[in-house]
């Protein structure tokens, strides 16, 4: 009996010790890898603290009074209007397409499991895997400069972002009404319209508003690659080293983003009570 206990104890301490040793080795290996990566990236670690003093110096001396008079000139305000229009068009078109994509990509109510389900999933994965700015650059190369490339990039971003959240909402619905309708012989389209949409509609409205405010942030930058909106002024001023003007544009962007967040918060509270 005591023999058995001793062997169990021995076994316990042996595995515990080897586990600890393994963990220690893992941590050590990871730390040495981390140190190696700093070396690999050529980061001047010994100058790191001094560097941040320089950031502050440059930030406050060269950038700090943001030139708001420059940022408020009519040609920039026109681009602000263009940016806002781009977000609305992209959000609207994207949400309309995302309704179908999320329906196809929801396993429980998808109309066709062999063909449309992989299609829906594929669209979601493909749109998510490429950053929106790269979509913007590709579309500018294909369609030419202008806000149309931006609207399509924002549409893709909406499909990837809202579509995923929307299909997760569909997968979480109560299947009772769906089964009841299927039992009466309703096809997938009617099941979707009359038993899925009524259940997910409030959540979808919340997602659509949240998505609008999330793509707003991306839209202020899209102009950087020529895809429309006020980001173009950011690029121009940075290239001409006009940092005070650039900071004016950045301050304008921050103001717009905060306004869009407040608006989105208000609208979600009004139309969608959790």
């Amino acid at each position: 009996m005591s023999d058995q206990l001793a062997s169990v104890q021995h076994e316990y301490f042996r595995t515990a010790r080897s586990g600890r040793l393994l963990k220690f080795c893992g941590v050590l290996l990871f730390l040495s890898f981390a140190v190696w990566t700093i070396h690999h990236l050529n980061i001047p670690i010994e100058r790191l603290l001094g560097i941040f003093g320089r950031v502050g110096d440059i930030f406050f001396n060269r950038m700090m009074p943001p030139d708001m008079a420059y940022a408020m000139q009519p040609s920039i305000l026109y681009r602000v209007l263009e940016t806002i229009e781009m977000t609305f068009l992209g959000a609207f078109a994207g949400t309309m397409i995302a309704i179908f994509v999320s329906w196809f990509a929801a396993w429980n109510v998808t109309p066709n499991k062999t063909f449309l389900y992989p299609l829906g999933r594929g669209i979601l994965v493909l749109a998510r895997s490429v950053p929106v700015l790269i979509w913007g650059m590709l579309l500018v190369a294909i369609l030419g400069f202008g806000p149309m490339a931006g609207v399509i990039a924002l549409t893709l971003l909406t499909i990837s972002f809202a579509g995923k959240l929307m299909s997760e909402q569909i997968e979480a619905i109560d299947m009772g009404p769906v089964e009841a309708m299927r039992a009466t012989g309703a096809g997938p389209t009617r099941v979707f319209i009359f038993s899925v949409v009524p259940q997910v509609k409030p959540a979808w409205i919340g997602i659509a508003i949240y998505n609008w405010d999330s793509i707003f942030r991306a839209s202020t930058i899209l102009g950087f690659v020529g895809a429309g909106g006020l980001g173009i002024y950011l690029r121009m001023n940075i290239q001409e080293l006009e940092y005070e003007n650039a900071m004016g544009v950045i301050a304008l962007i921050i103001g717009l983003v905060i306004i869009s967040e407040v608006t989105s918060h208000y609208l979600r509270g009004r139309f969608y009570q959790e």
Partner: protein
Amino acid sequence: MADISGNYSAQGNPLRERSVILKRYGWNALAGILLAAMAYHIFVVETDWARMGGLADILSTTAEFLPNLAFFPIILEPLFETLLIAFWGTTLATVIAMPVAYIAARNVTPFYPITYPLGRTIIVMSRSVHELIFALIFVSALGLGPLPGIVALGCRSIGFLAKTTSEAIENVDRKPIEAMEATGTNPISVFLFGIFPQVYPVVVGNVIFQLDINLRRAAILGMVGAGGIGYVFSEQMQAYNWNNAGTVVLGIALMVIVGEIVSNRIRTRLISGAGGSRAGGD
């Protein structure tokens, strides 16, 4: 017997009253007109359709982006650099976000009237500035290379990590903390031994989630000279080497997909059930 022959559902339904219907249609019509006006402005006034050419032109331009696989080995090194930038940016953000979360949590903030608004302001500023803007500022101050990219990602991620952590701190179980305070423990020890163990799983899950998001963000930072794969992409785009640019897009997509799968695996293993999945952005 209910009258099932006529439109009985319209009787006494407040949603079917004429004024309600008119109001609803009025709002929908207004939204439709506004959208149509915006579409007219963007797609007709602002778009140069002649330059775009016909559908055949668009398709042939698109076909030029087909990936050139011979270029793939060359982008492996920048992809690895992107991964490292994302890793160090997330690490930096985690280190800074913990004190910010501490002062931005309503129940533990040291001096409510000053530290709480300060913490909230840091969170809002970090969340509402795009990573490219941070990168532009830090590139002009620190010069080219991965360091401004790491700092930019760090600044961008503080907001999300501090926000979720401070919300987790606000929702902790008060009992262990009261027990520790009753024995006279100082606030730092209360935070380390009473609060931190409770929020630890949430923090780890969010850090891994943020690492996955930062991989996507790090891929574009190179466009402004902050290191990583984005530099190769804009270089190839400017040289009109569109096959090579297609290869870079393929590489980024593969890296992001693998990163997302790994991050989901680890998160479901670490906190089984808690959290759930989220889409990109924050």
